[in-house]
């Protein structure tokens, strides 16, 4: 009986520290590759506001495929493209969205994070951010095909840092191909979501 009590105590202590370790997750600074200052944008958009979003079906880090058809008629969409895992600005973008779920819920919007990195890379990288509540999708193969359809694949094979807001009908309502060196404002996303029908 006494032995069991010690065992429970030990399990509780381990569980506590494990949870704490998950909670404190952050991409370690020494693992961040700094590419330096880059050309702000390096692609030509192939879509514009008012166009239907090209179809996509991409694998998610959490497993399975995520497709446009899942959201049509149900939810607005915020699609956040980040250029590359393990880089400075990208590692500081999705963790902010991670505390803003209620904002996306308020406007009946799903958030989709997309990168042209492959699944194992995205798995390792996003694990350092703690548990993200939104799907992270890989546009790795055929390489950057969805980014290419949108016209946001840069000449070196990474995507732009871009935000697309799409309404329930699948129509693009907002495009921000952002300076790759800077983080888009969450406030700008929310202000655009306010304009959509829930």
């Amino acid at each position, binding site marked *: 009986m006494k032995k069991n009590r010690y065992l429970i105590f030990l399990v509780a202590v381990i569980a506590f520290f494990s949870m704490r370790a998950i909670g*404190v997750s952050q991409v370690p600074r020494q693992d961040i590759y700094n590419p330096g200052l880059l050309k702000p944008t390096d692609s030509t958009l192939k879509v514009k506001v008012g166009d239907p979003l090209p179809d996509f079906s991409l694998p998610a880090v959490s497993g399975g495929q995520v497709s446009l058809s899942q959201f049509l008629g149900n939810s607005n969409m915020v699609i956040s493209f980040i250029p590359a895992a393990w880089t400075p600005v990208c590692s500081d973008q999705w963790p902010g969205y991670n505390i803003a779920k209620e904002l996306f819920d308020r406007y009946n919007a799903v958030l989709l994070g997309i990168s042209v990195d492959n699944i194992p890379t995205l798995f390792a990288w996003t694990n350092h*951010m703690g548990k993200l509540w939104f799907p992270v999708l890989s546009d790795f193969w055929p390489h950057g095909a969805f980014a290419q359809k949108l016209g946001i694949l840069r000449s070196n094979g990474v995507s732009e840092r871009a935000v697309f807001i799409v309404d329930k009908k699948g129509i693009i309502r907002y495009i921000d191909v952002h300076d790759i060196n800077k983080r888009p404002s969450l406030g700008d996303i929310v202000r655009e979501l306010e304009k959509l029908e829930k």
Partner: protein
Amino acid sequence: MKRTLVCLIGVFIPFFLIHTYAFPDNPLPQKGSRLPEIKLAVPTAPAQRDYLGLTGDGFFTIADIKAKVVIIEIFSMYCPHCQREAPSVNQLYRTIENSPDAKGTVKLLGIGAGNDSFEVNYFSKTYEVPFPLFEDKDYLIHEQLGKPATPFFMGVRINTQGSHEVFYTHLGGFEGADQFLDEILKGSGLK
């Protein structure tokens, strides 16, 4: 050939010197140093203006705050460490306000590196932050302070003549609010 070399050296050396000395990277604040002149907008909320002892509109500097010690946290809404530490920093504020040695003489504020007003307000609302937070949308203050990782804490002593001095810096989370405040009070000479 020799002439070209001399010309190249003549161009390179002044460029190097100008780049190094006219545009050096700012160092992190050191104990005993003065802060660069940080200008923050006077809060619109009367309670925050009262807390900091500010009047009027426009901008203020740290030395304008009615306090003997100001603790400044450099944070970001996007930083998971800052998110995790937010409840502890709130506790620090409450510990200060409940301490006879610190209430009224030690003030706490946060500056959101790369955060605009929406992001700062969202962080404040999400974590129910009871002390004033300020935006630093374009990282101007962050750069002035040597681009510290976040969260980064500084203790600044305000002298009676209006001058000020950094007496404490700390990177990352802290063990407990009581211990943190004790270090601040001892380090500043208030205890």
